[in-house]
């Protein structure tokens, strides 16, 4: 177990190096004189100088990169160009909102996608299988934020069953937190549910025709045991891969949904930062997303080890 973690962390080092390069390059790639471009043509000389100072572009490239890495090591991501707020503070205010949204969506993906996938995969060609396949094709093509808008129209504006916005912190009221999150989390989870259903359907179909499943049936095990123990544990390997990728997808999808539902999470922060060309904030968000994705990859690796003894042995 610790070996897996160790190897993964070791692999993270070159990754972090590449990521730091990319993050650094973001600031370097701003066309023209970055300070002027960012401040706008009409900005005063003092304002341009202030941005120049904040970006630290008076120094040589190497010094700038050194400062970025130095800051990263100390957990310092710099200061927003538009407010005096530290980037880390802005991120930590926004993060719980995004994590709540993405986390609940992931839960939906798991508790809805897995049963659907099992049902479709163990009864290939059945009516249920065909309905799920058709719905899945539509679900993967529908943008999550549009689904969110439709949910707002139907369940918010039309029926009035759910609120159409406003995030309530978990600490304030867990029930209202959930109540306000249900619509956006469901909209966010739809694509993931579809992906999980499809993947599990196909890997369960393969597993159900595998020789070891025939053996399990020949042993006189209950159908339930054959499906949920013998077939599922093997079919779960590709499923875990898909779930890992979903973390990525959910973080991306959360951006637009936060805007639709008026949540001031990381996504909303990102959109505002892009409109203002607030480069330090963008850099911070990109880094944060890499950390979250790396953590989820680590979890995926650990799950592989448990599911597949061959991987563990290596």
């Amino acid at each position, binding site marked *: 177990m610790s070996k897996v973690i160790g190897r993964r962390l070791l692999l993270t080092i070159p990754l972090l190096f590449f990521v730091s390069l990319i993050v650094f390059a973001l600031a370097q790639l701003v066309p023209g004189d970055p300070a002027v471009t960012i401040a706008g043509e009409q900005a005063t000389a003092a304002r341009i100088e202030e941005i120049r100072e904040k970006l630290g572009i008076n120094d040589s490239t190497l010094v700038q990169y050194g400062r970025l890495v130095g800051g990263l090591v100390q957990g310092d991501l710099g200061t927003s160009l538009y407010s005096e707020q530290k980037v880390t503070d802005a991120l930590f205010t926004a993060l719980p909102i995004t994590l709540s949204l993405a986390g609940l969506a992931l839960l939906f993906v798991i508790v809805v996608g897995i049963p659907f996938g099992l049902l479709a995969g163990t009864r290939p*060609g059945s009516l249920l299988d065909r309905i799920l396949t058709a719905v899945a094709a539509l679900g993967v093509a529908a943008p999550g934020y549009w689904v969110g808008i439709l949910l707002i129209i139907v369940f918010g504006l039309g029926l009035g069953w759910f609120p159409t916005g406003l995030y309530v912190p978990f600490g304030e009221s867990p029930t209202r937190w959930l109540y306000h999150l249900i619509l956006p989390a469901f909209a966010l989870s739809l694509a993931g549910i579809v992906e999980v259903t499809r993947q599990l359907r196909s890997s369960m179909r393969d597993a159900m*025709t*595998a*020789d*070891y499943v*025939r*053996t*399990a*049936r*020949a*042993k*006189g*095990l*209950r*159908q339930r*045991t054959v499906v949920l123990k*013998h077939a599922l*544990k*093997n079919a779960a390997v590709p499923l875990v891969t898909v779930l890992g990728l979903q973390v990525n997808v959910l973080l991306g999808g959360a951006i637009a949904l936060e805007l639709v539902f008026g949540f001031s999470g990381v996504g909303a922060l990102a959109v505002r930062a892009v409109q203002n060309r607030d480069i330090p904030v963008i850099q911070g968000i990109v880094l944060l997303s890499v950390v979250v994705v790396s953590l989820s990859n680590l979890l995926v690796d650990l799950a592989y080890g448990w*599911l*597949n*003894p*061959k991987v563990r*042995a290596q």
Partner: protein
Amino acid sequence: MSEPPLLEVTDLDVDFATDHGWERVVNHVSFTVDRGETLGLVGESGSGKSVTCMALTALIPMPPGRVAGGSVRLEGRELIGMPAAELEQVRGAEVANIFQEPMTSLNPAFTVGEQIAEMVRRHKGLSRRAARGRAVEMLDRVGIPNASRRAEEYPHQFSGGMRQRVMIAMAVSCEPKLLIADEPTTALDVTIQAQVLDLLRDMQAELGMSVVFITHDLGVVAHSCDHVVVLYGGRVMEEAPIDELYFRPAHPYTEGLLTAMPQIGPRAGRLASIPGSTPVPSSLPAGCVFNPRCPYVVERCREGEIPLVEVGPGHRSRCVRVSELNLVGTS
């Protein structure tokens, strides 16, 4: 005398669904297995021998497969149409299977000990601990050294021969009355084959069970069977006690198989395999299904359904020319 045989298969028909409708893969197959007896089910791949045996306990996938007719009686109880829950109690406990591919027949995600223990728990109602103990005991009995340690290992840590021993340990762990061994040695090295065959015979003697031995290799049959049923194109072509079949084959197909068998001694020479390939169920020839590959074919062979006729005590053949041909067996 009134006691029924252990297994009685009568006129079994098995179909598989294809794009062109149902295709008959097993056609009116009948045989019986007595207590303690070993029956050889012989044929090339595609002859329907595996499907026949998997249909006995409804192990063929349904759909696309279906049992279209016939009866399978285990100690007089009808297995065809038995409710699924009841059939689960028969599988493993009374009728156990060993499959051809030891590499893929064990679940890669569980330890071999767990895979044996879960079966014992299911049928014998043992506790988790006791079942684990039973698993180790069985592994030891099939000759796996360090059984208690090996029980904690996964299938990929075993060699092919060792995996097949695990399969045997698992199959006999609930002391079944009938063991169906589907080409249990085909995927193994020649030296390992003999060991596994010996092990199977030992276990059979120890537990007094009957065995249905599926193989394409008549050499293996000679080693271990009392009776032989030869299948071709989903039909029984010949059925005989082992010596009869070897010395007095009554069907050209059997003769062909015997000729194709590797021989030791003065007659050893180049093998003459049966030319052509087994027919697909959708395009079976009229008359005798073997006629396109038969060197003795005449006009009569190409028309009508050929009956299975008695040619000696316990010896039947499905050949119209059986009385005029003087087929050569082994000496």
